[in-house]
């Protein structure tokens, strides 16, 4: 083999190993075939591969639960060895990281088996509803989307109560470390804490800095900036590229999420303090007028997309920006999955066009803010046959150490604990590339200062996933008249449903 070919192949193999596309054994085998002894690894390849290998080795060593936590798990878990715990969850970065890479450490330490059923969000709701209706305890742990918190509030243990059992309490679990806005927005319903915040997808502004620079546009710091820049990009680059994107599939929850961002951003709210629908008031109509104009700058297929299509449209360079879930940012930075790796910039959501309403001016605990927050809690089911074992697992899964591991392994999802944002392992991942965490400072700032949270009421699951997105879908399809007519009709429906309780 020619030396140049051998070197090129060697570089390719090393690059694949560093990027995690090749396991250690295959790498060593390929390296030895190419005449590279293990001892030469650090000498012959220059700084980058050596650094990469060292880092990979370090990660293998470090990306494990701390010895202290493993010891606690081993001690407290002994009486429950042989128990099997079940959790039904959406396929989210935290759940996937636990299911595929982390739960083995918990199982080895405690002898408790954990079965994680990963499903699309709507099917998780179906499974949990069946479990509650039957009270048979098929699942020990519930993954509760924030829009279901009110519905399931009486079917789970309040973690504050569970923490009082000193025998099972994890040392330094520190429930106050969870970001307070998330506790209020995701986990609280009336006076009950419905689990602890588990994951936090939240709207942040993500835009193509190269395109903005090329067209000399100001960063989208206000809603007006966003509209003007989107129109300018669509004019300059359409139909190959559009200014912004959306998740506007008729009848899908994602459409309701977009709506609330524009509604809150124009000084509106879903409910008033009397619990009546207010999405059709003056601010609501201003939001719809803005949305109509913004939609004209989006790709033509936008009203068939959920967050999947929206993310792909940006990742493939069809749209130049999106005000949407920050979870997508690590995917955009992955050169294998997207065409915009290193080109995206994250910033906090644009400033609202009018003064935000206060919580007192809305209903059912609704918190207006352009940074629409999704997210979910993790809770122990009241019907679980092994609630103590489930509580041990829940503490481990939501502890600061595990959350840091999840953030690094799970592709940069937004941590729910303050301390995790400052964890050295998380900070070390803040570079361009797959699984980046370089957007997390923006996520943290958005949670603290710009977060909007949906109302909490038992009917909200139906309103947010069915009634509201169906009505909005009909409006954009031109089937329900003007924005005022559509929203007036929606008000009648919503108020009727809420009145029924």
């Amino acid at each position, binding site marked *: 083999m020619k030396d140049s070919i051998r070197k090129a192949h060697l570089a390719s193999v090393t690059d694949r190993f560093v990027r995690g596309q090749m396991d250690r054994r295959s790498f060593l085998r390929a390296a030895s075939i190419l005449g590279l002894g293990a001892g030469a690894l650090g000498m012959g390849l220059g700084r980058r591969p050596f650094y990469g290998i060292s880092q990979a080795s370090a990660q293998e060593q470090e990306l494990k639960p701390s010895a202290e936590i493993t010891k606690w798990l081993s001690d407290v878990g002994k009486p429950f060895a042989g128990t099997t715990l*079940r959790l039904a969850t*959406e396929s*989210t970065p935290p759940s996937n990281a636990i299911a595929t890479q982390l739960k083995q450490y918990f199982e080895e330490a405690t002898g408790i088996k954990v*079965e994680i059923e990963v499903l699309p969000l709507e099917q998780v709701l179906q499974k949990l509803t069946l479990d509650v209706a039957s009270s048979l305890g098929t699942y020990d742990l519930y993954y509760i989307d924030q829009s279901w918190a009110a519905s399931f509030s009486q079917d789970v243990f309040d973690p504050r109560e569970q923490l009082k059992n000193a025998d099972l309490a994890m040392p330094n679990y520190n429930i106050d470390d969870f970001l307070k806005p998330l506790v209020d927005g995701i986990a609280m319903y009336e006076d009950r804490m419905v689990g602890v915040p588990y*994951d936090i997808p939240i709207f942040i502004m993500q835009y193509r800095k190269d395109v903005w620079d090329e067209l000399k546009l100001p960063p989208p710091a206000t809603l007006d900036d966003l509209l003007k820049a989107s129109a300018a990009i669509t004019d300059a680059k359409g139909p190959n590229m559009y200014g912004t994107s959306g998740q506007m599939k008729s009848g899908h929850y994602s459409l309701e999420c977009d709506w609330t961002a524009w509604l809150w951003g124009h000084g509106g709210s879903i409910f008033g303090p009397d619990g009546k629908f207010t999405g059709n008031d003056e601010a609501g109509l201003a939001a719809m007028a803005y949305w109509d104009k913004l939609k004209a700058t989006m790709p033509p297929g936008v009203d068939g997309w959920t*967050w999947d299509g929206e*993310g792909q449209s940006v990742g*493939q360079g069809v749209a130049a920006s999106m005000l949407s879930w920050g979870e997508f940012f690590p995917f955009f930075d992955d050169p*294998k999955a997207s065409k915009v790796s290193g080109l995206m910039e994250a910033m906090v959501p644009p400033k609202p066009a009018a003064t935000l309403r206060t919580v007192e001016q809305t209903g059912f605990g609704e918190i207006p803010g352009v940074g629409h927050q999704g997210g979910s809690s993790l809770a122990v089911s009241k019907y679980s046959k092994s609630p103590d074992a489930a509580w041990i697992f829940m503490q481990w899964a939501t502890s600061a150490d595990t959350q840091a591991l999840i953030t690094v392994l799970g592709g940069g999802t937004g941590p729910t604990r303050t301390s995790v944002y400052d964890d050295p392992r998380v900070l070390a991942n803040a570079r361009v590339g797959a699984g980046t965490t370089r957007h997390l400072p923006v996520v943290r700032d958005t949670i603290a200062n710009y977060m909007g949270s949906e109302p909490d009421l038992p009917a909200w699951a139906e309103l947010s996933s069915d009634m509201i997105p169906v009505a909005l879908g009909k409006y954009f399809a031109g089937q329900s008249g003007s924005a005022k007519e559509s929203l007036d009709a929606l008000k009648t429906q919503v108020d009727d449903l809420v009145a029924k309780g």
Partner: protein
Amino acid sequence: MNGSFSTRMLRTIAAWVVVAVFFFPIYYWTSVAFKHGNDIFNRPPKLFAFTPTFDNFQKVFGISLGSGGITVTPGGGNFYMAPRVWDSIVIATLSTVLAVAIATLAAYALSRMNFRGRHSFVGWVLSTRMMPPVAVAVPMFFIYKNFGLIDTYTGMVLIHALMNLPLAVLLMKSFFDDIPSEIDESAIVDGASRFMIFRRIVLPMAKGGIAATAVLCFIFSWTEFLFALTLTTTSVKTVPVVSSTFVTSIGTAWGNMAALGAASIIPAFIVILLVQKHLVRGLTMGSLKQ
């Protein structure tokens, strides 16, 4: 041979066009399984000119393509769906055998025996096909939970057999109806018992029909989603349910879904190949009799 050369040529071309049209979705889906994320969404779509990758299969099945050829590392993929394909094979095969066995006996009785309510029985069987599965999924969940059938092979085999039974009975009855009853009468005159006639005369003649029914039952079981979702949790899963797990909070893993989908075509394809000879005969039985 009928027709001129140009007519035959035209027919051949038309046949190839029809095959290409029907084969294209399969090709496209399978090609997605071999594409990187960027190539999947390329505009315009990359139909042929893309760099194939085994990454999706590696993640889904733990199969990797190295210098030593294909290697399988159970559990080595991110998802490792191979046991789930096996679950689907077991459930579809056993439920098909059960449904066809019961349906064959029931259909023969309905075709050959006169008893009160025979016609209304057929109507009742047909009516069960009209009921949407979602209407019974929740009650079935409670029944299954109480009988300990949730998340078991037995439970899934039973429900899929039950689901396929009405169609299988009606299909088999039409096949038995196509076999002239005079054959049975002749055998009776020769002293054969009813069961002997069924086993030695009618059943061999209905082989094609049985094959056609079995294939349909297998495919319906292979693709059934709602019961498989509702009545399983983690121990037993079928391919359609695990396919849905690729729909994640940050988008759909199309490459992984395509890898599982492309691989899951193979068992159904093998079943059809095995019974192909009988299948053609079964589907055309009506035109051969009487």
